[in-house]
């Protein structure tokens, strides 16, 4: 289970934020107390946290912004106007 999601915190959250997030997660009751405690424990352990950060974080912005050029500009350049062809009239 993704501990960052369980506690609803970002990858950069500090110790204080983790503890606070755990308390709030207990109030929300979306996850069991056991799951929340496990998430907090893992994230407070620096080595474990480094592993989890690598595992559960992807650079979504980098993925989404991987458009090389504006689609319209790129495609429209090669577009002639569509006109009815007569080659199929016979």
């Amino acid at each position: 289970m993704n501990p960052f999601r369980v506690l609803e915190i970002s990858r950069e959250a500090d110790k204080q934020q983790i503890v606070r997030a755990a308390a709030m997660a207990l109030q929300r009751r979306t996850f069991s107390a056991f799951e929340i405690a496990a998430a907090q424990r893992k994230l407070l352990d620096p080595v474990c946290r480094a592993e989890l950060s690598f595992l559960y974080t992807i650079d979504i912005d980098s993925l989404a912004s991987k458009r090389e050029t504006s689609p319209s500009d790129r495609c429209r350049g090669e577009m002639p106007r569509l006109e009815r062809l007569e080659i199929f009239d016979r």
Partner: protein
Amino acid sequence: MTENLTYQDKHLAKAEELFSRGSFQAAKKFFEKAGYGLERDEIAEKLRICNKEIAAQRAKELIKKARRCLAKGRPAEALALFIQAHGITGEAWLEDRISGLRRELQNVGSEDAASTAEAAGDYLAAADLYGRLAREGSNEAAALRRAHCLVMAAQWADAVEVYQGVDPQTHRDLYEFGLAMAMTGRYYECLKHWAKIPSEHADFIQQKRAVCALLASDSLERLETDIDHAAVLDELKDILRAMDHAGLKEAVRCYRNRLIALYWRDERYDLILKLLDEIDEIDPVLLEVAARASFLRVSESASELTASQLDDLTMYWLTALNQPETWSKLSTDAEQSSRLQARLIERAEALVKNGADLCSGDGERIYARWKEERSVMEQLRELAKGREHEDLPIYTPRFASRFGRSAAMLELIRSNRESIRDTDRYLTLGAYYSGAAPALFLAEDGCYEQALQLVKGLENQDEFTSYAALKIEFEIGLNLLEMGDKNAVRHIKSAAVLLTTAPGFEERIAQKAAGITDRRFIELYEKALGILIKEKPSPGLNRALSTLITTRAVMDFNRSRISVTPLSAAIERALELDPDNEAARIALSDAQYNRDFDELNEALEKHKMTRACQIVERSEHEGIYDAFFEFMEDAMNEVNERVTDKGERIFMLNDLYKWCQCVDCDHPLVDELGDLLDLEQ
């Protein structure tokens, strides 16, 4: 100027003459020539009269033709002519005539009228007429002609609607349906319809490419909106399969990335990997996504884990963790980054190992491959140590083969040839990144024949591909040996030369041979080992063959298939191969004992005592000596108990005494027999 006026006057005179004769067409020409550069009202007026008269004449001719058509029973053609004449004169009576004819034609059916209107270029009217026909008689042909007329009149949306209700079959109909779709923004459907037309006409191809560009552009404009991205991606891929188009490729890439981001948010790792499964090019960002998704999917699969999920993890994980981009993300401190990398690899290995237990046969294969690839990666990392400044990424063999990254690894291996002391290791590493790599993977998966075919069909052969071919031959041989197939020997023979560079294979076959107990398999292994020993004798192979020969000989002897003599001969051969074969030594000793024992028994039974004594003296086995004296003791007791005649008893005891003394005069039985004889005498 004078000449000019004269010239114009001449033209004017000619024009007036023609005008008065009623030749308005010719008169018009001369009036135009005469009037050039002059502003004379009378000329303009006469030109107007000429034009009017010419038009009236044209209209008269059209009307005449129309009447002729009517006379010949061709009202539709007559209608078209009347329409043209009306266009010229605008006379009211013509209007009435046209309306009358139209009514008349509608009464007899509008097909001709529609055709006529179509021929006359009045496509809207034709479409209307065809529409009526289609409605009245559920006439599909009329509907198709209506759709065509709508296309000709550029009424795209209406044309699409009509085409959707019919079944366009001809190339023209399919083309026009597609065109109407494209004109209404339905580019994917347009291309699907056009795909049914097997035309390679350059204009058509160009137009298809234009629609592809429109489709790509339109899709990308909708990328950020709330649409079914998966459905659009499927459409784009569908078109891309039939047509290579850069714009579409870009659109597919964008949609795939978008979907990956959406699936990641929803933790749908299986869907992410399915998307990544289709790509042939991968960048560091996607590689990391693939590695994480495969890791998380395996760690969350528990009992539902499949071999292919485990396979994905092994495909991406080691490569992802050996990319410079990934190291920098692990930690800013190089040492810590290295530690974390090692921990993450260990975690994955634990997952693969556990998963392998859950996936039975395939799992073992995958775990073996993981270990092999991990070892390969470690060796390559060692080789790359001197080139850290280049930030050299390292790829596992399977990853490199799939994404075309083998050349860089091969270059790394070749440039480090001197530092790899073990030739076998050098060739193994190189083979994994050579053109033979896919064949090696097939062989690892047990698809031996396919693997052999593939490697033998390679165009570019080098030291690595040759090594791979031999390795595959050897694997096939080993596999067939395990199955007891006679063809194994042929493959082992083909690969025997491998032993000169790779002693590892020698160990493998020797290990396998050591556990063989089935006689059918022993013979095959004996043959295979014999071939290999001939190619490259080695203590390991000799030991293995010696064991097999001993096992088979003893097995045959125990089942009375062979006598002591061939048993001894076989075991002596085994000892020649491996003088330290203790089992053979014991077996030989046992065989000799058995042989001596049999011969002794035979001699004693036939009372050939000289022969019996010779056997006892020759035999190295104490058992034979003991057996002889046991026999003599039994004989002595029997003489004592059963022979009543004293003389006969003395004679027989003397005999026994003599033979015993001949073998060993110090044996207690000799003394006993001596005492008995003294008592008797």
